[in-house]
């Protein structure tokens, strides 16, 4: 088992390496890199949207005027020391700006993931057990529709109907706390916080929830076809035990691996949702930085998100090993 973990961690290294390479490659796309400058000079074109100032700063930060291996070395060093330079906007160290925003995005995402699993699994089980019945077909159809609604549209619809204006005003649509709420005692503050993140969390959750419940249904239906389910019934076990104890335990296993796939989507999806609802998280920071071409922040976020996702995948793999005896057997060999 320990060997397996060790081997898995070793496999991380080339992937981490790859992340540094790809992010490096993206930086090279920055306007003002030597090749492009030459092309532009040759053709007499000027880069309009990018001010000279930004070009100069980028060049300095990433050493774009130096030979390529030096450039890569500079970038690697930045990653390893977590020193991504200073933001173009306010000259604060990038790493500080990110650190203060991570907790919020993480909170939203974790709440979302918990909700997804808590709701999707029972729905999936119900769908599998009632497969083919009219009520099940309706709920499956409804979930499919839900899944296909773009998140930004859903957000706009929710704001339109529930966020003030011509209809109801049930939820706030701005920020994570009402003005002045920072000074509330713990419980009222927490309630206020939850009230604010209700709509954004919903937007983050509904799509993956619909997807996961369909997946769970499929997984459980497949497991129910297996031989050992018939054996369980032949032993005289009641139906609910056959399904919930014997079948579900097996059907849950692939669901965990899905977790690894949901993570990058969540971090990305946060960009849109946080922007719409003005949530001060990494997504909003990322978007603002993209708007203002604040390259150091952009690169830092891209890299850190990738690394976080990588560890998320690792954790999902490890849970998988713990949960499926067949795999750990392979690992033990």
């Amino acid at each position, binding site marked *: 088992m320990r060997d397996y973990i060790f081997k898995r961690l070793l496999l991380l290294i080339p992937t981490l390496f790859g992340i540094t390479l790809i992010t490096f490659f993206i930086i090279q796309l920055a306007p003002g890199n030597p090749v492009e400058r030459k092309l532009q000079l040759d053709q007499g074109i000027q880069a309009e949207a990018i001010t000279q100032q930004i070009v100069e700063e980028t060049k300095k930060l990433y050493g774009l005027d130096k030979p390529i291996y030096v450039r890569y070395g500079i970038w690697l060093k930045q990653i390893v020391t977590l020193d991504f330079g200073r933001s173009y906007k306010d000259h604060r160290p990038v790493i500080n700006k990110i650190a203060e925003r991570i907790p919020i995005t993480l909170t939203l995402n974790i709440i979302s993931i918990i909700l997804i699993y808590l709701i999707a699994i029972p729905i999936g089980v119900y769908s599998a057990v009632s497969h083919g019945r009219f009520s099940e077909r309706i709920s499956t159809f409804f979930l499919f529709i839900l899944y296909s609604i773009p998140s930004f549209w859903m957000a706009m619809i929710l704001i339109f109907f529930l966020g003030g204006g011509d209809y109801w005003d049930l939820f706030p649509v701005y920020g994570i706390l009402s003005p002045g709420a920072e000074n509330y005692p713990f419980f009222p503050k927490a309630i206020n916080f939850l009230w604010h993140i209700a709509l954004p969390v919903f937007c983050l959750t509904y799509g993956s929830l619909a997807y996961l419940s369909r997946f769970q249904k499929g997984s459980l239906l497949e497991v129910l076809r*297996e*031989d*050992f389910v*018939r*054996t*369980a*019934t*032949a*032993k*005289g*076990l*009641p*139906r609910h035990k056959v399904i919930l104890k*014997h079948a579900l*335990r*097996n059907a849950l*296993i692939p669901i965990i691996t899905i977790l690894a796939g949901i993570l990058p989507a969540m971090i990305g999806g946060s960009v849109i949702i946080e922007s719409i609802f003005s949530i001060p998280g990494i997504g909003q920071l990322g978007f603002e930085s993209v708007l203002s071409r604040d390259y150091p922040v952009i690169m830092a976020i891209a890299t850190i998100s990738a690394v976080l996702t990588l560890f998320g995948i690792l954790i999902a793999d490890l849970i998988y090993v713990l*949960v*499926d*005896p*067949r795999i750990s*057997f392979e690992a033990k060999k």
Partner: protein
Amino acid sequence: MDNVLEIKDLRISFASDGKRVEVVGGISINVPKGKIIGVVGESGCGKTVTALSVMRLIPEPPGKIDSGEIIFDGADLLHYSDRDMRSIRGNRISMIFQEPISSLNPVFTVGNQIEEALSTHLNLSKQERKERVLELLTLVGIPAPQRRMHNYPHEMSGGMSQRVMIAMALACNPEVLIADEPTTALDVTIQAGILELINDLRVKMGMAVLLITHDLGIIAEVADEVYVMYAGKVVEHGYTADIFREPHHPYTVGLLNSVPGLQENKEMLNAIPGVVPSPDNFPDGCRFQDRCPLVIDKCRTDEPLLEQVGNAHTAACWRRAEVKKIEN
């Protein structure tokens, strides 16, 4: 001899492409107490479906038990409620299946699964259950049971998994064990051991065994009586020795002839020409007509019923008296 289980005139059909096709066409099987009753036939003849129907394990769409009775302990199982059936399954009638490793749940230990059979039906303390699990594992011939009970199914060989299945099936001392092709998925060398085990346990525990198989060799080894099935019908029935010595149905003869080793030195294996008709395409009259070397006109119009041909020996063939071991 008392019958512990009586299947009477059972008819089962399945839905296929919008139609209902009959896969078991009125068969009757009697299982006397403590005997091994073999049911032999090719794939698709309905023997497995029959076995599953005793346990009411047929999925009700698309399958359906159309008529008949299954008498156990004075009552018709087909009229039992779900709850009553649950108290029978794994308790008074147990079943083991063809693929032992995939018939066990991969995420629970072997000991856990055997224990579950006990806790479902018996009122024992945890300690008592653990002891019984060890007893059962020893009974079925698994060495080092203390260690083995913590194994997962995929950590065991096919033969050992089948022994575990048997242990699980026998946990509550059932009166009938239904064994559906218990050795088909196992190596030939292992098969003998399993058969021997089943036979020994049958004697020890006084239970009857309904043994489903396509392998006449197995029948010859352990079965007391044989029912030969073809295309959803019983075509011959009798004591094993009688069937082998004096078959009275052309299909039985064909089966016997196709077993390597039961005939004198032949270079070629004798297969029965033709294929089993599919359930949606059964001919009128005798279902064996297209493959039968003794077929006459009557066979194509009137279906032969089981008639006496000897002591407790019946066969369903118009020309049963003329059937001899046909030499090819």
